[in-house]
Structure formats: C-alpha cells, structure tokens
C-alpha cells in the first residue's frame, strides 16, 4: 500500500490512452454519428415533403375525379336527351309513314271500288241486254237499246 513508481507509470499510460482515444477513436465515431444524424434528419424532412406532395396529389386527383364525373354525367344526360329525341323522331316518322300508307291504301281501295263498279256496270248492261234479247226474242236495234241500257246502267 505504498506510493511508488507505479504512480508515474499510470500517469504516462493514462496520457497515452487519452491521446489514442482523442486521435483515433472519438472523432471518427462522433463524425459518423453526426453524419448519420444529419442523414436521418434529411430523410425525415424528405419523408415530410413527400407526404405533403402526396396529399396535394391526392387532392388534385380527387378534384379531377369530381370534374370527370360531372363531365361524364353531362355526357350521359346529353346522350339520353339525344336518344329520346331520336326515338321521338322515329315515332313521328313511323306515324307519318303509317298515315301515308293508309292514305295510299285507301286511295287504291277507292280506285278498285270504282273499277269494280265500272266493270259491274258494263257487265250489267250486257247481261240486261242479253236478258232482254232473250225475253223479247225480238230483234231490237242494238244501238238504240244499248244507249238506253247504258243510261240505265249509269243510274245504278
């Protein structure tokens, strides 16, 4: 338990180790740690920025989506309107066509009736003449009688 040279030996050793630590250990570790700290801080900053960017982008996307939806709704509306229009038009056309066809048919029918009447009239006159000829068994002036019978037939 006595003080001797060890004291100075330890002092020198102490100085050497402190010097070593100061030269080769502490600065290296501290610099690395500080750089890493900086890096992490930068990284966090970047993450924050990215977060904000993402939010902005999302907002933008939402806006655009809304716009697109509105546009789409407009287009659908328009299309519906147009479709209705087309249907209406088609209906009108169909009705008109029907009317036209009906009229044509009616006219034709009229014509047919008239023709039939004419034919009937002609055949009635002949038949009447033939019948009268048969009944009378006499030779009658065909021309005078025909006029008479025609007159009769036209009164039918």
């Amino acid at each position, binding site marked *: 338990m006595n003080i*001797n*040279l060890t004291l100075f030996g330890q002092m020198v050793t102490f100085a050497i180790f402190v010097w070593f630590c*100061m030269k080769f250990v502490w600065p290296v570790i501290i610099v690395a740690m500080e750089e890493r700290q900086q890096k992490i801080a930068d990284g966090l900053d970047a993450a924050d920025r990215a977060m904000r960017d993402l939010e902005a982008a999302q907002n933008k996307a939402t806006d655009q989506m809304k716009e697109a939806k509105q546009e789409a709704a407009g287009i659908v509306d328009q299309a519906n309107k147009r479709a209705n229009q087309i249907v209406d038009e088609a209906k009108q056309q169909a009705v008109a066509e029907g009317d036209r066809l009906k009229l044509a048919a009616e006219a034709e029918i009229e014509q047919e009736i008239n023709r039939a009447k004419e034919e009937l009239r002609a055949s009635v006159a002949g038949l009447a003449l033939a019948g009268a000829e048969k009944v009378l068994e006499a030779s009658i002036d065909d021309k005078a009688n025909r006029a008479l019978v025609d007159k009769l037939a036209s009164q039918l």
Partner: protein
Amino acid sequence: MSGENPASTTEYIQHHLQNLVYGKLPEGFERHSEVGGEVLSADTWTMAHGASEVAAMGFWAIHVDSMMWSIGLGIIFCWMFRAAAVRATTGVPSGFLNFVELVVDFIDGTVKDSFQGHNKMVAPLALTIFVWIFLMNLMDLLPVDLVPKLLMLAGVEYQKIVPSTDPNITMGMALGVFVLMLYYNIKIKGVGFIKELTMHPFNHWAFIPINLFMELVGLLAKPFSLGLRLFGNMYAGEMIFILIAMMFAAGAGTGLLSGGLNAQLFGEDTSGIFWLVVFILVCVVCWLNLKEKISTGRTVLLTLGLLTVAGGVFALGGGLMQWGWAIFHILVITLQAFIFMVLTIVYLSMAHEEDH
C-alpha cells in the same frame, strides 16, 4: 482457498493484498530465502518476495501486476473502440457498434451538460476515463482466487488483478487530471489564475496569505479526493470479496458431497484446479442457456447442483454471498467510474471558466 496452506486468515488476506512488485533493493539489504540469508553488495533491481522487501524498495518499485492489468485493459478499451470506429458508417449501425455508440452518446451528453467551454480533449478524456476505470473495476467481479491461484500455479507469487484497488493507479489518473487542470487554468486564465488563488474569497491585499492557503488546499483536495474515492470504494469492495471467500473457504472442505471427493483428489486442501473446473462447468451451463440450448429453470438447477456438488452447503452459501455482493458491486463499479468521469469534467470545466 488461498495459496500454500495459509497459516492464518491474516496471512491469506495479506497475501491477497500484496502486489507483484519489481523494484530496487538497496545495498546492504539482507534477503531471506529458502537457501538462507544473503546480503546484497550493491543496489539490485529484482522481484520482491514478501512485504519486508517491498518496504525496503520504497519509492523505487513498480507494481507489475497493476501496470500489466491496467495497460492490458486500456489496450482492450482502445482496441474495442477503435474497431467500432473503423466500422462506424453513416449507415444503419448494428450489434457491437450500437453498444459503442450508446456509450459515446452517453458520454457526449454528459460532457455537453457539464462542460461549457470549447475543448476537443474533454470528451475523449471522459470516454477513456469512464470505460477504462469501468474495465479495471470490472476485474473485481472475477472470483477473487481464480486468477491469483492460476498464476501461482504458473509460478507467479503475488497477483492483484484489480488495478483500481491500487492507490498508485487511481492517484496516477487523478494526478493526470490535476496536471490538465493546472495546464488549462494557466492557459485560459493566465494571470487570472494567480489572482484567483490570491484574491479570493477576500478581495484585499492583506488577506493574500489566507486566501492563498485556502485556495491551495481547495485545489489540492481535488485530485486527492478524486483518486482516493475510487481507491477506497474499490479496495473496500475487494476486501469484502476476500472476507466472504475466506469465511467459506473452511466450510468448503467439509462440504456434504465434495468433502470426500476433495480429500480423495487433493488431500486436505481444496485445489484451485478443482474450483477452476467448477467455474468452467458453471460458465458452460450459463453459456448453453444463453445459446438457448437449455431452459433457464434447468440452468438454475444445474448451476445449483454443480455448486452443491462442488462446495457443499457452506461453499454454496459463500457462492451465493459472493454472487449477491457481486451484483451489488456492479452498481458500485459503474457508479465509481461515472463519478470519476463527471468530477474530471467538472474540474476541467472550472479550469475553463473565467469568473470563479
């Protein structure tokens, strides 16, 4: 458990507290050895055998064991932290590097908290002090008899493996800090330092002698308290380990199972090798547990079993007490290293402050 059949407990303790000393024996000193007395005809540098030779050597002696352990541990510290420094990158740290950075960060925080000036030396100094002293104190946790016993088998007579129980070591470091204190006091304050010593606390020329006396006492008290506090704490801790070991050493021989075994193998005295084997076995069990090869419960059982077989009930009691004291001592070890570091920082901080 001590050396060559200790005649008494006093001898056992004395043997444990004896450093391995290399020094100069003065001319005319009479050496006592197995062969007989021998009177030295000239100053001789040699290994001391026993306390009387150490006393005769006086100042011109060096504690080989303290120096070796302290330098060795210092080299371990440098190597560890240098290895970490080489591996330190800005990338993700891992494992060992994490631990080193934790320590560095802790020291850096402490220094920033209590040191106001600008000095690139203080933080590395604090790191060296903290880790080095911690490692030196940590040697206290090795079983007290293990290393001395092994070295004795190798032919080394004395061995104190805890450098911080040597006042030379602690005072050496404290003096190193003291030199730095004086250096920075003079460098930073210049004449102000002399003024501080002479004109404080009574600012009048008539009080200069009183001031000087008071300030010098205050100044000198710093390194002394710094070095002796660490020494006292560690010395007391080591002492208690020795006392516990001694108390149960006798019991170990009469242990339930091992008594017969010991007597068969080694005769009356419990051999160090026996304890070494047990120590290694316990270490292996703990290691296996760490590697998760066996469960914790089984580890405890195995360890208890080993200790029972090895030393019997008394030795187990001793083992448990050593163990308990060791756990408490972990706190002391860390705390003392921390206190030494913080006080160093504070003293240097005071040396840097212009106004006292």
